[in-house]
C-alpha cells in the first residue's frame, strides 16, 4: 500500500495496462507528461482539437484490433463528439449484430467547484446513462479509480471513465500489487441502519462527514457508493433501503432526469423495497441551473455536507 492521489492512481492504472498490452494507445489534445515520457508519441498521441474525429478514430481503431483510450479531458469537450458517442460508439456493436467488439475507453473529468463557470463545470453523466450501449463509472477514491480504470481498459465494450475534478489531488491508499474492481458493484463506504445515503464521487466524502456528525447524535447512516453508473448495482441500493427504510441521494449534478432520479426510480419501483420505505425519497443535488462563476453563486449551487445533514434530519423527522 502506498498513498496516491486520485489522479496519480488513474495515470498508474493507464501506465500499467499499457505496459501489459501493446494494443493500447492514447489520444488527447494535450498528452499527460509521464505517459508521454514512458510510452513516446507513437502510443501517446497529441492530437488536433477535434474531439469528434478522435472519438470516431478511436472507434475505428477499436474495431480494427486496437484498444484506444480517448481522453476528452473535461467532459465539456466531448459534446462536440456526441454524435460519435451516441450514434456510433453506443450502437455500433449492437447494430452490426455483435460481429466485432469495440474496446474503447473514454476519460472525462466532471464536476464544479473550480470557479470556471457554466461551460467548464458540468456533471452530465446521466445524459450518457440514458444512452443504451455505454458502460460508465465515477469513482470516489484513488483505490476505486485504479481498480475500475483497469477493469474498464480490459472491457470489450465502450466504457466512459468519469472522474471528479474536485478529487484529482485527494489522496488514498492504493495496493502495490495488481488488482481490479468489477464494474457494476457498489461499495458500502459506511454501514448504518437508520438511513441510506447513495452518493457519488466528492459527495461520498461529504456524506461520510455528515454521517460522522450524526453518529455523535446516535443516528446511524449507511453510505453507498455505486461507483459504476451503468450497469447500476440496484440490488445493493435496494438491500440497503430495505434495511434502513430511508433514502437520500447526493449528487453534484442537477436533479432533473439525473442519476438521482434513476436511483429514486430503481428503489420505488421495486415492490420489496417500496414496502419498507418509510419516508419520501430525498434528492440533494446541485440546483438545476448552469454553473455560475462567482464563488458566492457557485457555492450556493452545489450540495454539500450541510445540505446532506439537513436532508437526513428531515427524513428522520418523518
Amino acid at each position, binding site marked *: 500500500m502506498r498513498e496516491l492521489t486520485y489522479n496519480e492512481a488513474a495515470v498508474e492504472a493507464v501506465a500499467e495496462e499499457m505496459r501489459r498490452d501493446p494494443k493500447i494507445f492514447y489520444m488527447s489534445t494535450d498528452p499527460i507528461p509521464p505517459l508521454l515520457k514512458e510510452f513516446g508519441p507513437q502510443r501517446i498521441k497529441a492530437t488536433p482539437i477535434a474531439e*469528434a*474525429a478522435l472519438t470516431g478514430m478511436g472507434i475505428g481503431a477499436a474495431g480494427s484490433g486496437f484498444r484506444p483510450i480517448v481522453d476528452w479531458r473535461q467532459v465539456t469537450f466531448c459534446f462536440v463528439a456526441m454524435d460519435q458517442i451516441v450514434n456510433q460508439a453506443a450502437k455500433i456493436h449492437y447494430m452490426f449484430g455483435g*460481429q466485432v467488439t469495440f474496446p474503447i475507453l473514454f476519460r472525462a473529468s466532471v464536476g464544479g467547484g473550480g470557479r470556471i463557470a457554466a461551460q467548464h463545470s458540468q456533471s452530465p453523466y446521466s445524459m450518457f446513462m440514458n444512452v443504451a*450501449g455505454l458502460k460508465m463509472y465515477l469513482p470516489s477514491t484513488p483505490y476505486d479509480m485504479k481498480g475500475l480504470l483497469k477493469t474498464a481498459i480490459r472491457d470489450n465494450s465502450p466504457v466512459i471513465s468519469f472522474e471528479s475534478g474536485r478529487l484529482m489531488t485527494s489522496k488514498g491508499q492504493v495496493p502495490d500489487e495488481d488488482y481490479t474492481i468489477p464494474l457494476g458493484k457498489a461499495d458500502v463506504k459506511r454501514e448504518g441502519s437508520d438511513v441510506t445515503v447513495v452518493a457519488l464521487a466528492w459527495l461520498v466524502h461529504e456524506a461520510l462527514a455528515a454521517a460522522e456528525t450524526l453518529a455523535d447524535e446516535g443516528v446511524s447512516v449507511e453510505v453507498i457508493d455505486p461507483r459504476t453508473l451503468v450497469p447500476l448495482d440496484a440490488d445493493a441500493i435496494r438491500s440497503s433501503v430495505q434495511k434502513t427504510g430511508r433514502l437520500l441521494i447526493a449528487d453534484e449534478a442537477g436533479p432533473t432526469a439525473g442519476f438521482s432520479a434513476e436511483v429514486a426510480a430503481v428503489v420505488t419501483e421495486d415492490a420489496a423495497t417500496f414496502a419498507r420505505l418509510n419516508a419520501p425519497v430525498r434528492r440533494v443535488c446541485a440546483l438545476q441551473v448552469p454553473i455560475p462563476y462567482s464563488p458566492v453563486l457557485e457555492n450556493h449551487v452545489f450540495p454539500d455536507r450541510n445540505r446532506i445533514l439537513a436532508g437526513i434530519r428531515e427524513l428522520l423527522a418523518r
Partner: protein
Amino acid sequence: MTNLSPNLPPDKQREMLRKMLTIRRFEERASDDYLAGKIYGVVHCYIGEEAAAVGVCSALDHGDRIISTHRGHGHCIAKGADLKRMMAELYGRQAGYCKGKGGSMHIADFDIGMLGANGIVAGGIAIVTGAGLAAQMEGKGGVAVSFFGDGASNAGPFHECLNIAATWKLPMLYVCENNMYAAQTPAAATHALSDVASRAAGYGIPGVVVDGNDVFAVYQAAHAAVERARSGGGPTLIECKTYRWRAHTERRGQPDLRDRAEVETWMRRDPIAMLAQQLCEQGELDSAGLQAMEDEIAHALEAAVAFAEASPFPLPDQAVEDVFAS
C-alpha cells in the same frame, strides 16, 4: 472511357463489370422487395453510381478497410460481401449480417474489411480514419477508404479527418461520391465551389476529380492513391462525379424534384453500359458472355432471396443481446 485496359488483365476487367452489374440487379431486387413489403424501413439505392465503388475497391486488397454511408449496398458488394447475408439482413432475418438488427443502413462485414454502412451523414469518416490509423500502427501496408457524399463533404468530420490524416500521413483514401444532390438539395446551393476536390489543397494533399461513371478512371485514380498511401505518402481526396438514377430513397410516391433532362442525360452515361460496350469493343466480352453474366447474377440473387426467406426471423428476446460485448 479511359483506356486503361492494357494494364488490367481481362479477367479483372470482366470482374469489375460483374460487380457493377451485381450491385444494380441486387438493388433492383431490393427495391422491388421493399415496395412489396418484404424489406422494411428505408432503402437508398446506389444505381447509377456503381463505377465509383467498384473502381475504388478493385484497387484494394482483401485486408484493406472501407466504410460506407446510408447508401451502402454498392460498397458492400464491391468489397466482396456475401449477397445471401446481405439479403437476409434486408429481410430482417437471423442469418443477416447483423442478425436483423441493422437493415439496409447498417450492413457491415468486418471480415472483409467493410466497416459498415452508416446512417449519419459524415458519421463514418472518423471511424474509418481510425482504421487508417490502425493500418499505420500495424505497419503492414494496409490502407483505408472513406466513401461519402457531396453532402457529407460540408460536415465537420470531413475537415477534422482530412487534416489529421494529412498531418499524420495516414494511409487513407477519401472518396467523395459527388452525385450533385444531398436528398433534395442541390450541391450547387450548398457548396461554394463545384469541386469538392479543390479542398485538398488546404491540407497539402492531392485532390483528384474523376469521371465517376468511368470505372477505369476511378480505378486509375484509386490505384495511384493506394500506392501513395501504402508507401507512406499520406491521404488523397478523390472526387467521383456521378449521379443517382433514383430518388433519394425508395418509397412509393417519393417526389424527385430534379430536372428530368438532367436525369436523362446522366442515364445515357450509364457506367455499366459504357463498360460493357468497351469490353465488347476490346473483344473481351460478347453478348453471349454478357448474357451469361446476367444469368449468373440472377441465379445468385435468387439464391440470396431463397436464403433470406429460409432464415428465421430473430426471436424477440434476441433484442436484448449484443448491447455489450460478452
